[in-house]
């Protein structure tokens, strides 16, 4: 019998009951509570002894008994029994005497010992006209269900269907939110395994970062100090997301433990590889660069399992060397023997650039890859920046290149730069007798540090002029004059420090006019004039507290002396 065929209006009492049910149904957010509310509402409104709700499983078109007082879970096919018939016909079935209806299945009664007399079975149809389940109410307390009950039940069923649908949608949302939160936590755990701050290694500038394409990434990096030296790691597991994130995090932890326990590079690489080969799925692997930098010898030895290209910017000649991996990716196969790793000599100004393929293979809208050439150009152009700045510039360059094309792969970078450390320093007695010693000192430093010998004469000339000035004008000071030579890109920077003296700013010495006729020329000042012409720059600084004069000049092969002079006055 179809509910819509019935014309009877709801009474005021019925209406009130329905409204009460509706507000009760608005509260629960989980399915089981909601089903309990629905059954309780039906029992109350219709004056029934028992009730149950069957939910439709859209995958199998079965009806599943989710809740019922004193019954076990049951599944029935659409079309079978009273429940199935109701689902198929999508209409109310009112059976006044169950045992007289062939569709009624008495086995449930037998099992429970309860006797079903009469039963109202009604479809739960949501606002999109989709059948979400079937509700049954059993045994009207004083008689059988009548036509009024059918109308009331239909109104109740409509409310229940919408409420059930709402709970199901809420559950899907909550499930999604739970998943998101779980991923967020996984990301936090993974990020916590990466170095939060860079280790401080004197004479080096270190920088690393990882930017996953998804919440969790398949890349990792490490920069950590051990007795063996500075551990440098960049790893990339196949794919991105949770699974590779677990693999790389596992590898990173194993490496840290291996080095903490005193392993050398070769055994750490081999053992971690073999462990990963044992545990990773057959088609999974991790490309990884694993290196140890000895800060005393500036030698960086590495193995690279499938991680490349490895860039070594060489400051001495401004070129980039590219290294290929030394081995196949970690975990691909067990290693029985290991080829010897590669050793790089990190000279002053050298930079090691490790980037995951998320950089090299970042594609613009047209499909072109960012490529190693662009990386090399940026590094070469920006070699004097700090590594944090260089990293930012690389990121920005990829951004500009991509022109909005999305990041498809994790992007991870590790930059290691050996600074232009002080090449040498020595103190000299304030005396003209020190001049041969100074010349010998510069020759020794230039030879040892392989500094361009073409610059030596200008440096010696400037040093002699400035040192002579110091001897002449502060002859009474007993302190020694310190000379410090620092290697810079393409040349040297030299600092003379004079203690316990009055200020004398050599850069403020009056310009002399070398074009004046001989009778107008004055002696003096010529030495400083020539220095300005010969050097790239010269700066003067006076520190009052300890009456210290500092003159710093720079000489590189890059800049021929400018005709108008390139004097930089002291800034303090």
């Amino acid at each position: 019998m179809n509910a819509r065929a019935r014309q009877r209006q709801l009474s005021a009492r019925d209406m009130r009951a329905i409204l009460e049910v509706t507000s009760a149904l608005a509260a629960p957010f989980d399915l089981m509570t909601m089903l309990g509310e629905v059954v309780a509402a039906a029992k109350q409104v219709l004056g029934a002894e028992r009730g149950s709700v069957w939910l439709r499983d859209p995958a199998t078109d079965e009806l599943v008994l989710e809740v019922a007082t004193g019954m076990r879970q049951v599944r029935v096919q659409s079309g079978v029994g009273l429940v199935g018939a109701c689902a198929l016909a999508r209409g109310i079935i009112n059976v006044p005497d169950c045992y007289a209806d062939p569709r009624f299945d008495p086995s449930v009664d037998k099992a429970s010992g309860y006797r079903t007399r009469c039963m109202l079975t009604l479809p739960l149809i949501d606002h999109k006209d989709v059948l979400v389940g079937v509700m049954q109410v059993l045994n009207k307390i004083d008689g059988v269900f009548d036509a009024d009950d059918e109308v009331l039940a239909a109104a109740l069923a409509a409310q229940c269907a919408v409420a059930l649908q709402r709970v199901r949608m809420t559950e899907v949302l909550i499930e999604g939110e739970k998943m998101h939160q779980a991923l967020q936590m996984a990301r936090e755990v993974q990020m916590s395994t990466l170095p939060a701050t860079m280790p401080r290694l004197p004479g080096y500038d270190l920088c690393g970062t990882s930017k996953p394409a998804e919440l969790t990434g398949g890349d990792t990096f490490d920069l950590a100090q051990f007795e063996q030296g500075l551990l440098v790691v960049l790893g990339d597991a196949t794919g991105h997301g949770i699974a590779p994130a677990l693999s790389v995090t596992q590898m990173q932890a194993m490496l840290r433990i291996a080095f903490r326990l005193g392993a050398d590079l070769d055994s750490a690489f081999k053992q971690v590889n073999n462990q990963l080969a044992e545990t990773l799925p057959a088609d999974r692997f991790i490309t990884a660069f694993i290196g140890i930098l000895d800060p005393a010898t500036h030698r960086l030895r590495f193995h690279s399992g499938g991680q490349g290209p490895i860039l070594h910017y060489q400051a001495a000649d401004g070129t980039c060397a590219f290294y290929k991996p030394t081995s196949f990716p970690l975990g691909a196969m067990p290693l029985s023997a290991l080829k010897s790793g590669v050793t790089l000599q990190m000279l002053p100004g050298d930079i090691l650039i490790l980037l995951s393929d998320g950089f090299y293979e970042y594609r613009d809208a047209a499909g072109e890859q960012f490529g190693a050439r662009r990386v090399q150009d940026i590094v070469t152009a920006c070699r004097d920046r700090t590594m944090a700045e260089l990293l930012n510039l690389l990121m920005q360059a990829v951004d500009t290149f991509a022109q909005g094309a999305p990041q498809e792969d994790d992007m991870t970078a590790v930059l290691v730069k050996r600074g232009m450390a002080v090449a040498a320093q020595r103190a000299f007695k304030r005396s003209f007798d020190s001049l041969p010693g100074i010349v010998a000192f510069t020759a020794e430093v230039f030879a040892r540090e392989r500094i361009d010998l073409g610059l030596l004469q200008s440096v010696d000339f400037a040093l002699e002029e400035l040192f002579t000035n110091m001897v002449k004008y502060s002859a009474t000071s007993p302190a020694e004059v310190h000379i410090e030579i620092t290697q810079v890109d393409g040349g040297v920077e030299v600092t003379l420090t004079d203690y316990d003296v009055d200020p004398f700013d050599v850069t403020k010495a009056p310009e002399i006019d070398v074009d004046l006729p001989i009778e107008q020329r004055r002696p003096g000042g010529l030495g400083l004039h020539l220095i300005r012409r010969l050097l790239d720059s010269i700066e003067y600084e006076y520190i009052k507290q300890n009456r210290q004069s500092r003159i710093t000049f720079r000489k590189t092969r890059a800049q021929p002396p400018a005709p108008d002079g390139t004097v930089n006055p002291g800034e303090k």
Partner: protein
Amino acid sequence: MLAIDHGPDGTVVVAGRLDAAQAPVAQAFLDRVQGAVTLECSRLEYISSAGLGVLLKTQKRLLASGGKLRLSGVSRHLQDIFGYSGFDQLFEIEPAE
């Protein structure tokens, strides 16, 4: 798209793009090959890390039973990929002519 099938000379011929989307197709095919297998790659345009994973899994399985996977007709570009991933140390690779 990816095509993978037995060639007339007993090789397995692979053509097209072996990327993450196509990896399961290639894996299903290669899971059935046995013994010493030559994979003819001259018409393989692209391989991703997922594709490398397929070759790796196949190589492991074949090596375990005394066989092996060999790659022939490998283009310059693919040689670079194998070189840069260290896979040239896991497979015998015959370059394209």
